[in-house]
């Protein structure tokens, strides 16, 4: 629908600008705050323009220990977060691809039951099953390990469902043509199915990476060793100092750093993401 009404254009642009301001203002304030000394926040007004302590704050945040009881530098926690997020993302994609492949293309008893059981786990996110999951992970001796951070979060009903829908739209003749061409199950999976679901995988990658990166409760629960702290949970930890000044400037800088990877992933994969959710080339 194309309409040519000037006030409508004006109104829609105004709405968008307000929206941008709402989203961007806190980010802007965090950026500004990171350039002021920590004491600047106690005095009653909030600075809106850059101060002169920027180099010092960022230097501390990037290269020294995070402080406030956290003994690892921020870059190291970023690395931990990255390992966890990527582990969860790739694990989820691999497992969902395989389970969707089995459910769609293979005939075995209770196929549909299997699918619905997987589907029902949608109702059981980590927060709901956190105590038993913790128990299992603890018994397996996986506390304070990357495996413990990622493995319990890898099963994904959403991704399985998405890939199932994607595979169901693959025409049956294509499967048969591949069979005639002598492609066994693995060949078919890697040569035909994976390239065909490329855009869906990319779209899921974006969603799952952000999901993995933003994990808070689970890492908080199972890591007690500083070497495995992730960035998102550490920000909270940096806040909880008993008396003494909270280093707001450092916290703001860390927050900005924590926002960077998801933003980079979204921007970098924007095209594929939209394509994967909207169109199908089959």
């Amino acid at each position, binding site marked *: 629908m194309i309409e040519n009404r000037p006030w409508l254009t004006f109104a829609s642009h105004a709405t968008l600008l307000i929206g941008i301001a709402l989203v961007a203002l806190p980010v802007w304030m965090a950026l500004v705050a990171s350039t002021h000394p920590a004491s600047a926040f106690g005095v009653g007004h909030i600075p809106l323009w850059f101060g002169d302590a920027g180099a010092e704050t960022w230097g501390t945040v990037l290269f020294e220990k995070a402080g406030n009881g956290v003994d690892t530098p921020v870059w190291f926690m970023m690395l931990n977060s990255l390992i966890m997020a990527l582990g969860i993302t790739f694990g989820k994609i691999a497992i969902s691809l395989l389970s969707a492949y089995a459910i769609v293309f293979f005939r075995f008893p209770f196929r549909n039951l299997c699918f619905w059981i997987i589907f029902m786990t949608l109702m059981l996110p980590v927060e709901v099953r956190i105590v038993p999951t913790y128990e299992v992970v603890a018994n397996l001796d996986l506390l304070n390990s990357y495996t413990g951070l990622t493995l319990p979060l890898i099963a994904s009903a959403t991704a399985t469902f998405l890939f199932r829908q994607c595979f169901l739209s693959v*025409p049956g*003749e*294509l499967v*048969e*043509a*591949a*069979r*005639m*061409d*002598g*492609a066994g199950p693995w*060949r078919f999976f890697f*040569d*035909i199915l994976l*390239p*065909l679901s*490329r855009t869906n995988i990319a779209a899921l990658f974006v969603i799952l990476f952000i999901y993995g990166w933003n994990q808070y409760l689970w890492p908080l629960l199972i890591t007690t060793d500083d070497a495995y702290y992730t960035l998102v949970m550490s920000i909270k930890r940096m806040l909880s100092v008993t008396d003494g000044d909270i280093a707001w400037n450092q916290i703001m800088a860390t927050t900005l750093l924590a926002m960077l990877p998801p933003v980079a992933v979204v921007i970098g994969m924007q095209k594929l993401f939209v394509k994967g959710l909207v169109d199908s*080339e*089959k």
Partner: protein
Amino acid sequence: MTDVILEKVGKTYPNGYHAIPSVDLSIEEGEFIVLVGPSGCGKSTLLRMVAGLESISTGELRIRGERMNDKEPAERDIAMVFQNYALYPHMTVYDNMAYGLKNRGMPKAQIAEKVSDVATMLGLTELLQRKPRQLSGGQRQRVAMGRAMVRDPKVFLFDEPLSNLDAKLRVQMRVEIRQLQRKLGTTTLYVTHDQVEAMTLADRLVVLNKGKAEQIGTPMDLYNKPATPFVAAFIGSPSMNLINANLTEQGVKISEALTLPLSHAFRGGIVWGIRPEHLEVSDEQNADFALRIQAVESLGAETLIHGKLETESGHGEPLVVRLSGPHLPDINSLMWLRAPVSHWHLFDANTQQRL
């Protein structure tokens, strides 16, 4: 040498549906066999059983003497062209054609040579680096055929390959398929519901009806001597006039007033048939019967006249006459017709077999 043998091949689905009771067919090397029939007659199922995409419930399939029932499609040394082409959308034309060879472990240089040979033959050389979605329907069809041809299979299988093309292209591709097949000399099994396609392509036709092979023979056999009323009606366009009648001492009794003289030993209910092109216009004295004209289709080269047999009660059987050249008779007028005995087809009404 007999290339493909279907021996009492039957298909029963797990839900108990008896799609194909039993089909016997032996195909000579290099022969072009067309399976034809109305939709739902089991022709595609039969082809897919030969391809190995459907299991064979009963009977045996042999290709070059080797039992194929339990072999994977890729091991049967066959190639299939699908109705929707089934090209891999993410691969170039070259990769589409090369994929089957790659899976067989053929060396790369040899693959390149084979693909370029076939591409030259089909006029696809300039398109080799394109993706299927950048091709027109006819070009996709060619690529699908090329993919089948590079593998040098013992048998080609075609599953209604032309039904997605427009009418003009269909005629062109039909001729092309026939020429290619002659040139390559590969045994071919071709499924279609279009009887014109079937007649023009086939060395031999198999007319299927409800999973049963009604008749197997050359196109002219089927046209001249259809074995059953079903084949008679299916082959030829417009289809044969078939009228239920009785064979008595006087001849073929079509209605109370109309009996066509014939001496035949058979007595009882029959189906009497004559093709529209075999009816002749005549004058009143020599005519066998009169036709009350209801509709005229003028096609220039020929004219189709639809009408009803003229009877006292006014409930005559519908009949079509095909005349060459333009004719413009009046609607509702009477037309006198002769039906030469030599062109009659008689079928037993009970057994549906030719007399």
